C-alpha cells in the first residue's frame, strides 16, 4: 500500500500510515468458496476432542444486556471458572465480557482464576458518542480492572471515507487503554462488502488494535466464516508486513460446536499453529459454551445428555 502521511507515536517512533483507499480487493465468490472448503474437513476422535477443549478455552463468555445485574455477572463468572464440574479437568473459558459498569464485579469474582475481564466501551454498540466520551468510557473500564477493551469503530465516518478519523479514534482509544489489550469491533454486518471489511481491518491494525473483531452481536449478520476469513487474511498480510501478531475474534452467531470447529480449521490453515491459542483467537459467544460442554460430555460417556444437565448462565 502506498504511504501518504507520517505520524509520530507517543514513544517517538516514526510510523507510516498506508493509503487506505487502495487496500487489497476481495472477490466475494472466491472468499465464499474458500470458506466452505474448510467445512469439508472431517474431524474425528482426538482431533475433535482437542478441538472442543480449545474452543471452550477460547470463549469470551458474554453478557451485554440492559437487564444485566451484579448477580447475573457473578453467576456468569462462576460458570467461566467451572464450566461443568461433572466433567473434571475441563479448561476454563478465556474471558468474561461485560459492560463497563460490571467490570469491578467481574474482576472481583474472577480474582486469581487467570480468566480475563473484557469490557465493551466507546458507546457500545452504536459508537454514536463524541470522542472524549468514548475515551472516558474506556478509561473508566480500565480503571475498574478491565484486562481487555472491546471498542466499536465509527461506521458512519468509515462509510463517509473519513479513514483518518477512524484511524485516529482507534489510536486514541488504544492510548487510553494503557496496558489493556484492545479489540476493535468492525461491525461487519454494517459494512456491506468484503472490500470494506478488509479496509476496516487494515485501518484497525495499523492504528494499534491488538485484536480485530467482527461484530457487536447486536446486528445481523454477525460473524460468518467468509467475513472471518477476510479478516484472518488481513492479519496474515499484516504479520508478514510488520512482524506483529494480531488476534481475531468472531462474535455473534456461533452457537454450535461444529461451526466453532470449522472456524478452528480455518485459523489452523490460514494462520497456523501460533494462532491456535486464546492469546490470539477468541469466540465472542454466550450459548456456544453449553453446546461444547454437551459434545464433550458425549465424547466422555458416548451419550447425549439433555440440555437441562448444563447450567443456563
Amino acid at each position, binding site marked *: 500500500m502506498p504511504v501518504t502521511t507520517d505520524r509520530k507515536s507517543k514513544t517517538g517512533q516514526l510510523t507510516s500510515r498506508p493509503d487506505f483507499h487502495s487496500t487489497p480487493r476481495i472477490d466475494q465468490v472466491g472468499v465464499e468458496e474458500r470458506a466452505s472448503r474448510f467445512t469439508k474437513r472431517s474431524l474425528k*476422535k482426538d*482431533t475433535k476432542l482437542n478441538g472442543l477443549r480449545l474452543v471452550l478455552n477460547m470463549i469470551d463468555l458474554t453478557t451485554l444486556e440492559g437487564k444485566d445485574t451484579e448477580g447475573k455477572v457473578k453467576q456468569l463468572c462462576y460458570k467461566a471458572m467451572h464450566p461443568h464440574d461433572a466433567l473434571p479437568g475441563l479448561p476454563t473459558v478465556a474471558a468474561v465480557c461485560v459492560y463497563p459498569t460490571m467490570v469491578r464485579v467481574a474482576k472481583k469474582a474472577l480474582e486469581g482464576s487467570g480468566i480475563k475481564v473484557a469490557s465493551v466501551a466507546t458507546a457500545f454498540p452504536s459508537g454514536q458518542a463524541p470522542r472524549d466520551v468514548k475515551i472516558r468510557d474506556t478509561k473508566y473500564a480500565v480503571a475498574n480492572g478491565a484486562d481487555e477493551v472491546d471498542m466499536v469503530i465509527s461506521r458512519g465516518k468509515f462509510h463517509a471515507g473519513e479513514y483518518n478519523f477512524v484511524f485516529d479514534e482507534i489510536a486514541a482509544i488504544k492510548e487510553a487503554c494503557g496496558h489493556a489489550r484492545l479489540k476493535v469491533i468492525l461491525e461487519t454486518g454494517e459494512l456491506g462488502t468484503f472490500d470494506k471489511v478488509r479496509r476496516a481491518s487494515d485501518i484497525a491494525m495499523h492504528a494499534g488494535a491488538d485484536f480485530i473483531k467482527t461484530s457487536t452481536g447486536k446486528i445481523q449478520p454477525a460473524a460468518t466464516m467468509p467475513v472471518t476469513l477476510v479478516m484472518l487474511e488481513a492479519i496474515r498480510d499484516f*504479520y508478514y508486513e510488520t512482524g506483529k501478531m494480531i488476534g481475531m475474534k468472531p462474535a455473534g452467531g456461533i452457537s454450535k460446536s461444529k461451526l466453532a470447529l470449522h472456524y478452528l480449521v480455518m485459523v*489452523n490453515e490460514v494462520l497456523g499453529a501460533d494462532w491456535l491459542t486464546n492469546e490470539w483467537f477468541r469466540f465472542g459467544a454466550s450459548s456456544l459454551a453449553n453446546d461444547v460442554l454437551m459434545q464433550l460430555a458425549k465424547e466422555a460417556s458416548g451419550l447425549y445428555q439433555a440440555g437441562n444437565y448444563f447450567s443456563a448462565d
Partner: protein
Amino acid sequence: MATTKKPIRSKKAAVAKTNSIKLKFDTGWTYAPAPESKSAASINKQYDLFINGEWQKPESRKYFDTINPATEEKLSEVAEANAADVNKAVAAARTAYDKVWKKMPATERAKYIFRIARIIQEKARELAIIESLDGGKPIRESRDFDVPTAANHFFYYAGWADKLEYAFPNRKAQPLGVAGQIIPWNFPLLMAAWKIAPALATGNTVVLKPAETTPLTALKLAEIIQEADLPPGVVNILTGAGATGAALVNHPDINKIAFTGSTDVGKIIQRAVSGTNKRVTLELGGKAANIIFEDAPLDQAVEGVINGIFFNQGHVCCAGSRLYVQESVAKEVIRKLKDRMSSLLVGDPLDKNTDIGAINSKQQLDTILKYISIGKKEGAEMYESNCRLPNKGFFCRPTLFTNVAQSNRIAQEEIFGPVLSILTFRTDDEVIEKANNTPYGLSAGVWTDKGSKIFNLTKRLRAGVIWANTFNKFDPGSPFGGYKESGYGREGGLHGLLPYIELTS
C-alpha cells in the same frame, strides 16, 4: 507527501525484520484419519464385456488387472476386447440403431436418459468410492464433483432429446449412427457421461471404451444402464488398452469417433480416419495460462491457482499449469502459494480430508518425476510442500517452479501432474503473447479487478474456455473444447449436440 526519506528507511528495516517470518503449518492441530468406508461399494472379482445389453466373455479370452494406485493392490480384473469383440459390439450397436433407437420417439429416448441420471444419483456414494479406489482421486472430489456432475450431464441432455427442433430451428437434426467413444483415465465416469449423454439424446448408439487403468466406474455405469432397461445394444462398453481403441477407430461401420486423451493419440486417430466418412471430435492436451494482474484479489487468485493446478492431482487437460503473474505482485503471490500449499494434505484418496490423492499410475508418476528433474536441469527453482507421503502407492507432492523461462520444457509441454510453472510479465500485450505462445489452446484464466481487462484478454487469448476470476468451473450447459493441438469439437451445452447430428432442411 512531506517527507519521503524516513518512511523508506523504516520500511527497509521492517522488510529486513520480517524476512524471517514464517507461519507454522506443520505443527499443532493435525487431523485424525477420516476414511470413507469401502463397504458401501461392491466390486466384482471379474468383469466381462458389456455387449448387446448383456455381459459377454471376451473372444480374446484375456483379462487384465485394474489396481488401486494408492495401495498398488488389485481391485478386479476386466476383459480385454480384441477386434472380434469390437465387431460384435459395433454390430449390436448398428442393429440397435436401425431397429430401435433411431425410430423411437424422442420423448421415450429422454425417459431412458433421465432414468440413467437418477440411478447415478441413487448410487452416488458407491460410484464415488469406486472412482477414488480405481483412479486415486480424493473422495472429496469424486463425491462433490465427478459423480454429481456426471448425473447433471445426463439430466441436461435428457432435456434436449425432444427439443432438437428448437435447438436448430427450421432444420432437421438427424443422428449419425454408431459412435465409437474413447475416454481417458482422469475423470472416468464424468467423461463417460460427457460422451454417452449427447449421443443418446440425439438418437445415436454407442460403443464406449474406458481407459485401461480406470475401467470400473464405466462398468458400474453398464450395470446402471441395464437397470435402466435401456434397449440392448444402444450402449456397449468394451474394456481394453490401445489396441482395443485402435480396432474401434478403424472399424468400417463406425460413423463417428469421439476421443478425449493425449495429443499424440489424437494425431494417430486423425491420421487413421482420413479418407473415411467418419466424423471426429478430439479433446486433447493443454497447457493453460493462468494470469494474475496486480490489481487482482490476490488471496482468491491464489486459491484459484491452487485449485487450477492441484485439482485431481493435476490430471486435468485444462489445468492451469502455467502461471503468469505480474512482476509487482510476484513475490507476494509466490509466498501466498507456498503458504497455501503447506495446508494441502496428500494421502489416502478415501480419506475425507485428503486434498491430493494418488497419481493414477506408475507410468504417469514416472512422467511427472521426469519433468520435475527436467525443470531442475533447466535451471528453474523447485519448491515442494513438505507433507508426508504414504509408503506405498503412487504419490507426488504438490510442486512449483519459479524462475521459469518461456523456452523451458516445463513451460511448454503438458506434464499432467501437480506441477506448476511460474513466469512473470509486465504488460498486457506481453502476457497475451506469452500465453498464446503454445501449441495448445484449451483453457486460460484471468484474474483482475478490472472488467475491461477481462474483455480485452478473453478476446485475444486463443483458448476454448477462459475463466475470469475463477478456474475449473464446469456446467453441462457450457460448451468445452479447444483450439490448435488441444483438438476440435465442443462438448457440453447446445454446441455439444452438433458433433452427433447431421443438419438437414
